[in-house]
């Protein structure tokens, strides 16, 4: 039996310092992502952060290469690195927006240059993570036999960091958040400084504090991309930002301009003045217009758009407005005589503004008699309010005018899945209907996917001939679809045709529609759209298959409604549209692929590099690579899937995400701490890995039904179920990393830094890889792969353990 080393004492001061610093790194990551989302787009935040997070991998590489030298000066280095990391956290974002480092994503892809600036941004953002991770890595390696306690502190700190970031983002303007977070790392460094180190670190800390004070009081000009909606709007005459509210949902800003008008593809019949007004932007992206109160309900602007369709054939009294945003659909329903309106809004910050500061500007919309605002995700609302039924369920106008360049490709849209429409159909009163509108897109994607999803949902709900239940009308810019619970009647068809004639619109789908009726006012030289639509309505299975874009209905397992690109058709599309235009067809998806490619490439470099420097047998290195790589990949895959599932479960994405991450970190931390008391041997590690495999495989098949069955329960039950569902696997998963490190500490301590680096690198790759797999194959595939990676880790350890043990006894 191998003799255990006498463990070094881990001081509480070290644990507190490590926890604080870990919290700062995670909080900084989240705050940086928000800042980059504001000035560019959130996909690019992932792209840049993935590189920055490779700082963890690089720190492992450096530790592997210069382990002895670094450890010899560790007392001096750890506090210094923490403080440097903290100071860099404060300055990197303002530095990245300085003239010579500023770049614009749209210009990158349109030949406008800026690649060098992008590269410099990578480097700038990499540094605080690199120094910060190096400090943690040194602590882990220096006292690796106590890794259980250290990892506990690291995980607990990371979990708290996520919550801290949310709180800071809710209270402070985005540019101020990294300043406060940076101070945390500086304090961590000071806590660890001995008397000798204080001579250097105290003045450094003072400089950091001064820097924070100066930057905190600066005006914090963010310099948004000129292609961001907010920036463009600010060029309108007399445009000014009237409200700025930090929130966990992002930076909410309201812009007022008399030239900012809302009348989406309004009919040529509308001859009145379209008044200008306010619009809401979240993180610099357009969120919604606030319609000024109208004196005459008959002149509501949406009465002159295709969105009027449901009101043309009925007078709904009870209306549900899904994703009600700034309340445009609510005001439309009120103008058309609705008596009871449920408005479901996910963004509490915007809802709060409309209920308070902008109450007057919106005509008191959210406090109007009969209007009830529900601040949660629509799917969650539908699942909970199973007894309420509606005459009309309205979804907001989809896409943006001119398209969104595929920027929403990776956004989960649970309100537009097959399951969502099925649920909506169940909530309709007799004669009720669902209405969905979209901007016409070129080439047609959204305008085909909506009917495809509605038809499938209708069939699933027992409607035998959906064509008798469908109507759609088209203007020059938008199309509105309605799916009625009962078949359309003759009077409905007469009313729709009459309305189309009045408005210069064309019927697109009606029972027994003549083809020529489709192009009375709005002609198109290309009838392929109509042909495709007819094939979808006729449920021709090939209609969804032989199209260059993915237009099959999205599901809860793959809720990427706005993801249309098929990798297989990339070359074909490039031939049709030209290679230069391809990025703008699906910018979000392309960014994901770039992110994955770049992080994989760098991860390989960071893993391969120490392989050449370490002078141990190749076989043992492969086992360490597989074990720690698999842990990095599997843990993140599981975390991402749990986040996705619980977002739908709780209906509050931001809070669900924070809760899942924190719960996972907490339980993993407890697992890590308890693992310290276990004897380390290969068979134990293998058995724990196999237990995780079993749990995750069980989750792949049981979790979704379990959550669906309990979604309508009270909050106490739901929290209990969540704690069990997240906590149990997290607790077990948390044991594997420290046990592996302790095993290496006994048998091959030179490989510990490498294990740390490999784990970090694979964690980074896994974020974009999990999303790519989810988009292509669904969440269940991701969780099955996570289970398999743990199986692989168990096998790798079993194999390497035997060899190590043989060596120890020889």
């Amino acid at each position, binding site marked *: 039996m191998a003799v255990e080393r006498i463990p070094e004492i881990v001081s509480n001061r070290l644990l507190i310092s490590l926890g604080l610093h870990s919290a700062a790194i995670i909080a900084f990551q989240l705050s940086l992502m928000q800042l980059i989302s504001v000035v560019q787009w959130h996909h690019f935040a992932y792209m840049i952060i993935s590189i920055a997070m490779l700082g963890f991998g690089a720190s492992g590489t450096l530790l592997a290469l210069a382990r002895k030298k670094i450890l010899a000066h560790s007392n001096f280095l750890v506090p210094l690195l923490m403080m440097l990391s903290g100071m860099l956290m404060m300055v990197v974002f303002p530095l990245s927006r300085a003239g010579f480092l500023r770049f614009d994503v*749209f*210009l990158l*892809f*349109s*030949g*406008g*240059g800026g690649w060098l600036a992008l590269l410099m941004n990578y480097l700038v953002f990499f540094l605080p993570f690199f120094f910060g991770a190096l400090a943690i890595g040194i602590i882990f390696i220096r006292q690796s036999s106590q890794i259980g306690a250290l990892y506990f502190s690291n995980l607990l700190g990371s979990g708290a960091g996520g919550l801290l970031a949310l709180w800071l983002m809710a209270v402070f303007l985005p540019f101020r958040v990294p300043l406060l977070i940076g101070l945390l790392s500086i304090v961590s460094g000071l806590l660890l400084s001995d008397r000798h180190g204080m001579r250097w670190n105290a003045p450094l800390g003072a400089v950091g504090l001064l820097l924070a004070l100066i930057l905190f009081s600066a005006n914090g000009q963010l310099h948004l991309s*000129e292609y*961001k909606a907010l*920036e*463009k709007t600010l*060029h*309108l*005459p007399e445009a000014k930002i009237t409200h700025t509210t930090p929130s966990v949902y992002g930076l909410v800003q309201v812009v007022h301009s*008399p*030239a900012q*008008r*809302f*009348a*989406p*593809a*309004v009919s*040529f019949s509308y*001859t*009145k*003045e*379209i008044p200008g007004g306010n619009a809401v932007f979240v993180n610099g992206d357009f969120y919604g217009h606030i319609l000024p109160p109208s004196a005459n309900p008959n002149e509501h602007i949406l009465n002159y758009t295709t969105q009027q369709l449901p009101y043309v054939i009925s007078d709904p009294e009870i209306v549900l407005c899904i994703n009600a945003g700034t309340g445009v659909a609510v005001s439309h329903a009120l103008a058309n005589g609705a008596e009871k309106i449920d408005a479901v809004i996910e963004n509490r910050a915007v809802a709060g503004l409309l209920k308070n500061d902008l109450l007057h500007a919106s005509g008191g919309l959210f406090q109007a008699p009969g209007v009830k605002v529900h601040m949660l995700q629509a799917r969650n609302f539908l699942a909970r309010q199973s007894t309420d039924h509606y005459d009309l369920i309205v979804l907001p106008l989809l896409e943006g*005018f*001119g*398209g969104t*360049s595929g920027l929403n490709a990776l956004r989960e849209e649970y309100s537009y899945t097959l399951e969502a429409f099925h649920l909506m159909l169940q909530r309709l009163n007799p004669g009720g209907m669902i209405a969905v509108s979209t*901007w*016409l897109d*070129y*080439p*047609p994607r959204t305008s085909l996917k909506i009917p495809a999803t509605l038809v499938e949902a209708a069939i699933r709900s027992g409607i035998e001939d959906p064509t008798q239940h469908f109507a759609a009308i088209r203007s*020059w*810019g938008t199309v509105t679809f309605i799916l009625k619970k009962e078949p359309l009647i003759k009077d409905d068809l007469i009313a729709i045709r009459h309305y189309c004639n009045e408005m*210069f619109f064309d019927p697109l789908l009606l029972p027994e529609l003549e083809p020529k009726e489709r192009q009375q*006012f*709005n*002609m*198109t*030289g*290309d009838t*392929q759209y109509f042909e*495709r639509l007819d094939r979808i309505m006729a449920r021709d299975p090939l209609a969804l*298959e*032989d*199209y*260059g874009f993915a237009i099959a209905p999205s599901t809860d397992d793959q809720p990427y409604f706005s993801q249309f690109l098929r990798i*297989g*058709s990339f070359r*074909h599309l490039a031939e*049709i*549209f030209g290679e*230069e*235009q391809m990025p*703008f*067809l699906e910018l979000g998806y392309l960014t994901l692929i770039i992110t994955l490619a770049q992080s994989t490439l760098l991860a390989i470099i960071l893993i391969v590099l120490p392989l050449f420097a370490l002078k141990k047998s190749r076989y043992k290195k492969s086992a360490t690579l597989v074990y720690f790589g698999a842990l990095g990949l599997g843990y993140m895959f599981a975390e991402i899937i749990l986040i996705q599932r619980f977002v739908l479960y709780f209906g509050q994405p931001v809070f669900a995400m924070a809760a899942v991450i924190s719960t996972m970190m907490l339980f993993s931390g407890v697992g890590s701490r308890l693992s310290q008391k276990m004897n380390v041997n290969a068979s134990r590690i293998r058995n724990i890995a196999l237990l995780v495999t079993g749990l995750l495989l069980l989750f792949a098949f049981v979790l979704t039904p379990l959550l669906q069955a309990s979604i309508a329960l009270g909050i106490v039950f739901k929290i209990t179920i969540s704690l069990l569902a997240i906590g149990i696997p997290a607790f077990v998963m948390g044991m594997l990393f420290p046990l592996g490190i302790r095993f290496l500490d006994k048998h091959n301590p030179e490989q510990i830094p490498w294990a740390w680096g490999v784990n970090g690198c694979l964690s980074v790759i896994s974020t974009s890889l999990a999303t790519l797999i989810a988009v292509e194959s669904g969440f269940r595939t991701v969780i099955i792969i996570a289970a398999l990676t743990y199986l692989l880790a168990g096998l790798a350890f079993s194999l390497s353990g035997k060899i190590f043990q043989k060596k120890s006894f020889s």
Partner: protein
Amino acid sequence: MSRKTRITFGLGALFTWLSFQPGGDPYAGSRKQMVDEQIRARGIDHAPTLEAMERVPRHRFVPADQQRFAYADRPLPIGYGQTISQPYIVAYMTQIIDPKPHYKVLEIGTGSGYQAAILAEIVDKVYTIEIVPELGRSASRLLNELYDNVSVKIADGYHGWEEAGPFDAIVVTAAAGTIPPPLIEQLKEGGKMIIPVGSPYLTQQLMLVEKRSRRYTTRSLMPVRFVPFRRSE
């Protein structure tokens, strides 16, 4: 002055001098090539449009750092989140309104001023409105230098140019999700309005609005024909 700066200035001076020499325009070849390969080859055969495209110095309407791409087959950034349209789109929009020498044309969204310049080569009078003051001022300077039949106004295009209307044609270059009622009013009976619809970076869907006897019709032009194909078995 550094050597690099001297060389840059020297080259700049040389190009400026060359561009004022008869037949010495350094971009003339690129322009001809643009017209032949990007415009004529794609079916634009409206002679006045082709002649105008061959005459107007597009490189003068793009920012200095974009001049080397001025005749490339794509839109270019001009600042303030705006672009100068792809040459083919400009030619197509011009051809589709079939401008005649006696025409009075309103343009909404002056941007760089390039579309207004093409129209000014063909028609009697061009009125153009730009909402971004900085863009409006720079386009106004250039257009006033090159033409005497273009009027530029910095204003909200929503209201059109009532005192100058009605117009034979209206060209909306900065597309929006709303076609303002005043513009429809300022279009002559039988007049044509052309509007791009779609992302400024993608092949845009152009839309023609026609007004006849208070009846309004739209026609989608240049449809993005999407060739269906089967997945490989």
